[in-house]
């Protein structure tokens, strides 16, 4: 396998972008990533795009072709990947594999989602299509899935609602330092704890945002990366694992098996240990999700994620900063774009260009996305290639 680098990265400012057409979002992210890469667009041999709800929320499918056309390279093979929240991360992984195995040299990866096109119940219904048909009928919505995990984690490990709130408070703070974040204001613990209940024990501030966003990357072989960009970022690992789709079929509600399995694969591929990771963007669709993930990724022992958050170990100046971008909680959750946006944060941090939220001495950056019920995890590990 060849080594693969990210040579260009860009994301638009995320938020509620009702006036910005979907393909304008794609065009802005992709064109600026191409500019960042310093590559001629005609050198791009394939486009891999992550998007979850194009048909349901925008009435536009076949976004691969639409993207190639709007970028002026209509004959380039351009494919859309759908795996719910991990759609963008899957597109990245497929690009990585194609370059690593010599199928293509230069691939454009795009993640895009336009969520705020309908009223909230319709948006929630769209998100619920990520779950099993019978689970949907039974009344499952995204907050309910992760509330099942929160109840179990609190029962088994004594994790508290205050610790959940501290995840949100931290990520709101980080988002306040990110000019591309959907939500850029701090929120107090008291306000988070007193928010209306959505699915017990998760309140409104325990939930990620409904965000419109787009992000793009240009990937190429590591051996020629510096011909294009003086600060390429190498992909040390790409891993993926699954889990039972129906919510009731799980062996555990305090852990995500797909995260544990993918993490093991990723660390082995990169030749590193969890304690070697400097910082991470992890899937925090709900506050409990971040707590469980930082345990399953091996950053903290099982059951101690809440304590680690309480002790500040995941804050910007902590032992392992998590979701410096603001995460899904504050930077926002533009479903199919989120996994690509995480990598834009990794590139920005590794290049030392994250401004006020810059983490010190970044060496190894891990990105992690869940998808589905959650029935899939995708993990990548990055390091400087210069």
């Amino acid at each position: 396998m060849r080594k693969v680098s990210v040579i260009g990265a860009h994301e638009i400012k995320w938020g509620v972008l009702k006036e910005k057409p979907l393909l304008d979002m794609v065009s802005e992210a992709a064109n600026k990533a191409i500019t960042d890469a310093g590559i001629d667009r005609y050198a791009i041999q394939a486009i891999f795009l992550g998007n979850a709800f194009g048909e349901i929320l925008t009435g536009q499918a076949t976004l691969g072709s639409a993207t190639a056309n709007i970028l002026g390279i209509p004959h380039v093979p351009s494919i859309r990947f759908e795996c719910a929240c991990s759609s963008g991360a899957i597109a990245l992984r497929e690009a990585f594999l194609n370059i690593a195995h010599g199928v293509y040299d230069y691939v454009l990866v795009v993640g895009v989602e336009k969520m705020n096109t309908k009223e909230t119940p319709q948006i929630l219904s769209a998100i619920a299509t990520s779950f099993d048909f019978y689970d949907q009928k039974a009344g499952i919505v995204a907050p309910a899935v992760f509330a099942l995990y929160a109840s179990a984690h609190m029962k088994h490990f004594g994790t508290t609602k205050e610790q959940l709130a501290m995840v949100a408070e931290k990520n709101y703070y980080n988002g306040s330092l990110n000019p591309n974040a959907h939500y850029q204001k701090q929120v107090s613990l008291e306000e988070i704890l007193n928010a209306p209940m959505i699915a017990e024990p998760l309140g409104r501030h325990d939930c990620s945002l409904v965000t419109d966003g787009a992000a793009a990357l240009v990937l190429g072989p590591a051996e020629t990366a510096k011909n294009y960009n003086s600060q390429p970022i190498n992909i040390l690992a790409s891993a993926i694992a699954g889990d039972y789709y129906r919510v009731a079929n799980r062996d555990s509600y305090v852990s995500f098996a797909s995260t544990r399995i993918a993490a093991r694969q990723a660390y082995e591929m990169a030749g590193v240990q969890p304690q070697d990771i400097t910082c991470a963007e992890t899937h925090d669709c709900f506050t409990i999700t971040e707590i469980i993930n930082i345990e399953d990724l091996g950053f903290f022992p099982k059951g101690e994620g809440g304590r680690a958050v309480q002790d500040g170990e995941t804050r910007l100046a902590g032992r392992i900063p998590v979701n410096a971008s603001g995460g899904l909680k504050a930077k926002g959750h533009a479903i199919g774009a989120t996994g690509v946006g995480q990598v834009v944060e990794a590139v920005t941090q590794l290049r030392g260009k994250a401004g006020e939220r810059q983490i010190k001495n970044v060496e190894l950056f891990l990105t992690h996305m869940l998808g589905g019920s959650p029935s899939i995890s995708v993990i990548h590990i990055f390091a400087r290639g210069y």
Partner: protein
Amino acid sequence: MSAAVLTGYKCNYCRQTYLNSSDLCGKCGSTASLFEFELPDDGSIVTFTTVWRGVDYLPQPYTLAVIDLGGEIQVLGRVKRGGQGIAINQKVRYAGKDEYGHIFELS
């Protein structure tokens, strides 16, 4: 609401259990091997949540739980609480199903 008997399906070859019938076993691929069997009425709550902002066709709030039925199978269902508290490991009994899914009540 139908009679309170919860039917499962089991593969005669690989013993995989299902809540919904099918023409073949998804796990081993054998055909004409799934047979109906009656699942236990009594179970316990593995985990639960009360949903305040959920699907629009159910009165809110509603309580969803993963129920373990005697170690045979786990089922996602709604729990009728009747104003009572609810906890993990609490015992429940199958109460039937409606067009949306299975319903349990606290024992």
